[in-house]
């Protein structure tokens, strides 16, 4: 494995590396920045796929069994341009699976984790660049296998992203229970392997490769969050792998781990699955929380309020996240005493989450707010995450969950935390770090347009879900209006579907802005946001080994509006008179530029 010792010593030699071939530079690269971008582009592709699947679902819920214009003939030609009844569970399954495993997790951890960690800690690259390369190229077969599912007989997996047994263990029960489900299992096993490789790399990199002066408690929250997320990935994902293996064996060689007829247990699947999948939801939110902290602090021109509590809260959320999985199983028939334990631990998670929320608010209070696109999206993150989190408290109360489990309340909850939370976090992160990644700036005005449209449409689509859920509308049913008591909900569903089309079209604004700026955006300066963290102390984009000279870190990342200097920002790597990395800077600001 490559160690730092084997990498080019750029401190003593100019960039003398021979020009790499296109393949080595952009396809099979070991450069974390390139790999990060590879994850970024594949994730964005799957975002579109997952979104289109959602639109098909929304169309069905608004106008069940109607002919779908334009798309209908492409996708459902064989069933008269109308959604085939057995296709709805497949839509539900693939929307969830793709959004979770091929969009949110790879974009937060794979794209931003890869791109940012070495830069923010002042390192040249990850600890194991070749392992990093391998982790992306293990994802590629995972992509291909999952996509193949759409084209096999019976179609893609249709047992829900949760793949509950007995349906998922029996190959001939419904279309989509066949090869599609098996391919789903194989694909996720590959995704899990890639994730674990990445986690080993990230954890090692953060512990081992920090620049001089970069103590753990001088790390930006983005790095802390990605670091703790990586620990979650490392410890939780293998349990999913074990579950996937057991169900694969049930399906292929005829074991009965999950079939009562052969002595197995149905709920065992749920326990194994949720033991991973609950930490998975924290894998999906923690990086966004970390990024929101950095972005809010920067655009409020104020230090992050309560840095250490923020760090410890992330640790608490992650730790508690391992002992709450049963709250997904309150209605499974498991022992109610067990349910009470899970209810208690689940409610406890609200505490560190609340600490973080209040600290974001306290950071904003009295700040010189710059309402640029990254900040607007970060603010949307905080507000919608609160709604999502509060709705989760209802679900955590087992007696309440009796009524709202498997209803649209839960769908509203998950989308407020995943779209409202993670995705607005992603929108903020994309616009904030785009200049650093690509050396150009995105258009600020269109960024604001995208934000306003998305925020409005998002709330119009997803808030009514709490109403639907409390009313009793179940999840995953292709035609809920079969039940007379739900028939009055159709008009609200139609309103939500139209809002969903608006939401989808609004993303075009972001995509056009993104791709146009990639080629024609204004060239970016080193530090367009006047931010403190180390990635801004190098060129946009950074050179191959990130920094021309290794940065020296003198302070934490949140010295905005510091009394030590006249500017309202004070980079981590800027030396002041009489300052060494271990001492507190004193006296008047020196005019020394940030380490270049």
């Amino acid at each position, binding site marked *: 494995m490559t*160690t*730092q010792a084997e990498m080019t010593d*750029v401190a003593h030699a100019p960039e003398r590396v021979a020009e790499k071939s296109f393949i080595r530079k952009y396809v099979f690269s070991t450069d974390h920045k390139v790999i990060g971008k590879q994850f970024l582009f594949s994730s964005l592709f799957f975002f579109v796929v997952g979104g289109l699947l959602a639109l098909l679902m929304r169309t069905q819920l608004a106008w069940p069994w109607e002919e779908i214009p334009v798309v209908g003939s492409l996708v459902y030609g064989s069933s008269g341009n109308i959604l085939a009844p057995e296709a709805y569970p497949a839509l539900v399954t693939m929307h969830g699976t793709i959004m979770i495993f091929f969009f949110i997790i790879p974009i937060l951890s794979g794209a931003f984790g890869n791109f940012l960690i070495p830069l923010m800690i002042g390192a040249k690259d990850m600890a194991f660049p070749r392992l990093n390369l391998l982790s992306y190229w293990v994802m590629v077969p995972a992509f291909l296998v999952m996509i193949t599912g759409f084209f096999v007989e019976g179609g893609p997996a249709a047992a829900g992203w949760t793949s509950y047994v007995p349906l998922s263990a029996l190959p001939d029960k419904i279309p989509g229970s066949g090869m599609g489900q098996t391919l789903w299992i194989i694909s996720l096993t590959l995704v899990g392997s890639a994730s674990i490789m990445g986690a*080993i790399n990230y954890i090692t990199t953060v512990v*081992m490769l920090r620049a001089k002066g970069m103590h753990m408690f001088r790390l930006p929250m983005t790095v802390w969050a990605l670091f703790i997320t990586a620990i979650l990935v490392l410890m939780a994902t*293998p349990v999913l792998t074990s579950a996937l*293996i057991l169900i694969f064996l049930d399906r292929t060689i005829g*074991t009965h781990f999950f079939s009562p007829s052969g002595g197995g247990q149905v709920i065992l699947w749920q326990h*194994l699955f949720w033991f991973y999948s609950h930490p998975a939801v924290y894998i999906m939110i923690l990086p966004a929380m970390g990024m929101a902290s950095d972005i809010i602090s920067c655009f409020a021109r104020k230090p992050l309020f309560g840095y250490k509590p923020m760090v410890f809260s992330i640790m608490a959320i992650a730790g508690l996240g391992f002992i709450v999985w049963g709250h997904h199983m309150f209605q499974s028939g498991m022992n109610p005493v067990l349910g009470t334990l899970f209810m208690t631990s689940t409610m406890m998670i609200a505490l560190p989450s609340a600490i973080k929320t209040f600290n974001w608010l306290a950071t904003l209070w009295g700040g010189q707010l710059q309402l640029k696109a990254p900040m607007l999206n970060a603010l949307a993150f905080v507000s919608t995450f609160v709604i999502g989190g509060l709705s989760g408290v209802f679900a955590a109360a087992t007696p309440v969950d009796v009524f709202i489990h498997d209803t649209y309340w839960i769908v509203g909850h998950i989308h407020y935390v995943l779209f409202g939370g993670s995705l607005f976090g992603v929108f903020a992160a994309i616009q904030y770090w785009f200049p650093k990644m690509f050396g150009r700036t995105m258009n600020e005005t269109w960024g604001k347009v995208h934000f306003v449209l998305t925020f409005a449409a998002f709330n119009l689509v997803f808030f009514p879900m709490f109403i639907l859920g409390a009313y009793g509308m179940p999840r995953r049913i292709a035609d809920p209006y079969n039940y007379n008591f739900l028939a009055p909900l159709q008009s609200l569903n139609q309103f939500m579907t139209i809002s969903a089309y608006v939401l989808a079209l609004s993303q075009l604004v972001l995509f056009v802005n993104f791709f146009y700026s990639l080629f024609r955006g204004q060239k970016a300066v080193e530090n367009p946001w006047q931010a403190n963290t180390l990635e801004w102390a190098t060129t946009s984009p950074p050179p191959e080994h990130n920094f021309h000279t290794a940065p020296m870190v003198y302070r934490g990342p949140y010295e905005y509006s510091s009394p030590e200097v006249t500017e309202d920002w004070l980079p981590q790597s800027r030396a002041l008179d009489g300052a060494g990395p271990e001492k507190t800077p004193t006296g008047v600001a020196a005019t020394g530029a940030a380490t270049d």
Partner: protein
Amino acid sequence: MAHAAVSEHHATPTWQGITTVKFAWWLFLASEVMFFAGLIAAYIVLRAGSPDWPIVSEELNVPLVAGNTLILIVSSVTMVQAYAAIEVGDQKKLRNMLLATAALGVIFLSIQGIEWSALLREGVTAQNSLFGASFYTLTGFHGAHVSGGVVGLVFVNLKALRGGYTQAAHEGVELMGLYWHFVDVVWIILFTIIYLI
């Protein structure tokens, strides 16, 4: 907390005296522990919930496999001896102990194979018996990990034979040892919960 100074010097970064590779290796082993934890948890739940679990001493050859367990434990001892040898620069002992470890690993796998074929001849398959399915899956994945370890030992043995390890630089031996001990500890747990309890 120790920080890493890597740009000016080519010193391998360390944290609390642990090198980068060794740190990562421990993380890898932690993930492997979680993988087996999932399988073991499934086994415990299935067995506890099964009304007609066979009497293990009637189905499986406990004395043989107890002996096999001892063989694996001894192979961990020889592995420790190999590491101790290269720590003082004893190349000969290193080679002998590495060879012994590999040989014992192969013997372990062979006796596992004997157990499997005996059980199959009894008519216990993965399909017709939950006990069988659990047994073959747990011991199968453990065996796969031992096999991986034997492959690793082949590489380490070859490198030792050509003098690739020195008193000053022998991290590969240590990493091999860590993996081998992990595989041994997992086996002790599996043996206990499958054969003894």
